[in-house]
């Protein structure tokens, strides 16, 4: 169907988006590359000087770098896994006929409405606090020792909070996709004696492949930059257990005001994100075939 005419039109329609994004990318990127080669602390203006790759060397040899790389991967991977699995199940459930659909749907999307700092503060102080939190109270009432979440399982606690925030995103996209699934096809499969599970496996899941791939890619981009949740709960500690790349860059940019170091860190993050994205495209990219 792709005639010459539609091809030309297609390019024409694509141009505004591409041109805008190109400018939006190239200007800050250019400035960041320039700053990354300077010794430039915001608190020492007028002292900028060219230092070559020193900022990169410094960032990459930071003992915190490897730990934060690992934490970043664990955080992104775990949250993706949880949100996609839970999101799929929730979407399947919400696709059923039941009483009060609109209300339940709204309840399920609601975690996405709350600002990350607020969610983190609510989870930390009202739910997970080992003395005054809700979870501690539940544990004590059934005769167990309350869990000291942020000391015993710091990274897992952050994963839990972030996964809670992003499950609605996955669920909503997958639910929307489920609704365009051809009902007759599924009915027919069920009529042919296929069980609910094999219907899911052979009809529903392939249909969801593309939306799941999109959820994974989009979420990855956002999850790579998670830092508000870390900042208000653990401040990156204890030790380096909850320091991720974004927090490391944040602490260079807005705690130390080291613009040079933060720029170098930001560019390292771009490289990591690209590697990750290419890797993910390898895995999920087939379902994106155009």
């Amino acid at each position: 169907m792709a005639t010459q005419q539609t091809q030309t039109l297609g390019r024409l329609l694509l141009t505004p988006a591409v041109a805008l994004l190109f400018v939006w990318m190239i200007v800050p990127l250019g400035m960041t590359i320039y700053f990354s080669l300077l010794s430039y602390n915001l608190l020492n203006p007028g002292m900028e000087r060219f230092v070559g790759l020193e900022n990169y060397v410094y960032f990459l040899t930071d003992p915190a770098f490897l730990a934060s790389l690992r934490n970043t991967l664990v955080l992104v991977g775990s949250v993706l896994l949880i949100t996609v699995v839970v999101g799929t199940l929730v979407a399947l459930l919400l696709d059923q006929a039941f009483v009060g659909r609109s209300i339940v749907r709204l309840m399920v999307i609601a975690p996405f409405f709350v600002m990350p700092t607020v969610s983190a503060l609510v989870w930390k102080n009202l739910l997970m606090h080992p003395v005054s939190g809700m979870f501690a109270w539940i544990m004590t009432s059934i005769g167990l020792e309350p869990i000291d979440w942020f000391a015993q399982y710091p990274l897992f606690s952050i994963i839990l909070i972030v996964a809670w925030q992003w499950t609605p995103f996955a669920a909503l996209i997958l639910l929307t996709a489920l609704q365009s699934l051809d009902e007759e096809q599924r009915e027919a499969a069920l009529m042919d004696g296929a069980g609910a599970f094999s219907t899911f496996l052979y009809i529903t899941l392939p249909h969801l492949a593309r939306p799941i791939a999109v959820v994974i890619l989009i979420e990855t981009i956002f999850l790579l930059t998670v830092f508000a949740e870390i900042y208000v709960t653990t401040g990156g500690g204890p030790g380096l257990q909850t320091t991720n790349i974004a927090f490391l860059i944040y602490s260079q940019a807005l705690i130390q005001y080291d613009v040079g170091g933060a720029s170098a860190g930001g560019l390292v993050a771009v490289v990591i994100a690209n590697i990750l994205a290419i890797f993910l495209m390898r895995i999920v990219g087939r379902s994106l075939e155009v």
Partner: protein
Amino acid sequence: MRKAIGALVGASALLAAAPSFAQTTLTIATVNNGDMIRMQGLTSDFTAKNPGINVKWVTLEENVLRQRVTTDIATKGGQFDVLTIGTYEVPIWAKQKWLLPLDDLGAAYDAKDILPKIADAVSVGGTLYAAPFYGESSMMMYRTDLFEKAGLKMPESPSWDFVFDAARKLTDKSAGVYGICLRGKAGWGENMAFLTAMANSYGARWFDEKWQPQFNTPEWKATLTDYVAIMKEAGPPGSSSNGFNENLALFNSGKCAMWIDATVAASFVSNPKESKVADKVGFALAPNKGLGKNANWLWAWNLAIPAGSKKVDAAKKFIAWATSKGYTELVASKDGWANVPPGTRTSLYQNEAYLSAAPFAKLTLASIDSADPNHPTVKPVPYVGVQYAAIPEFQGIGTQVGQQFSAALSGATTVDAALTAAQASTEREMRRAGYLK
């Protein structure tokens, strides 16, 4: 729907393009702490006395405000006319010539009345660069009822040994009472504020005269060992992520027998609307180790004017109003003496009405007086500041060290390993910043 949103977008473009030129409008950036909120509420008193000046408030939480204001002043964005900054920023920014000197706030301002230690902290070369709005130190808050029941008596200036001993005796985990609550959340203004003050009383220092980090000294080891040990034995669960507010919540719900933190907490813990233990709180100086230094810090929030401001006169008028004796009286007449901003003026601590309304006033003053930003610890140091070193690099260094120390507290690492890591990361940063060759 589409029309409505189209109209909104159009309206936004119009609104964005129509500034008003009628009056001088001051944009004031401030922290969302109680005393500043009260100042914001009293704005009409200022505008009534100064027709022609409008005030717009930007009230943000401390960390956001700090990053916001620093970015703006460093890039000369010119978004603010009056800034609220801490004692940490004042000397650094004054040195960069980012702040206007405030030596001419008028005769009624009475600069000599400012508490000498606070005035030191916000002056460079004898010139005032920021006007203190409220000042604080740290002190010991404790539960008089629990002490009585255990047959203990808190001295006015307790030693660490007494505090540790009392903490062990007062801990009753089955009843949900913990002997001592202290900060543990990683951050230069979180656990490191407390631990640096504690280390000062142990005779430790951040850097020697040649800027060599000192975490490999026995003083730091003793500090961190004692801190971790007592928190394990007598501290509440979750302390490695507790900051000021978490401890305040614990203390106010009756879970802590002792708490050492900012003097401003005194008014919160003794407020019956916010505290279950309001009538059972006693105060004492922060503990010492018999070396002549108590573990108290010194901090003040101050108002300052960025260099290059085009509204200097109006800004000075505002600062003179907000930090004057008249403002104190205004607050007293509206909300009572207990609510006036503390810790900045000698005259306040000679005022009988204030002293009787605020039982913690004398100790606050004594705590502020015993902290010395120029000589924070036993040995000489090359930096200014009690619970911080006023150099631009400190926030980053302090946060990294704070992470290590919170790991020692949570048990993720040992005291020795935490100190070694702290020493290494601090040396690395100091070398990069050019202090160490």
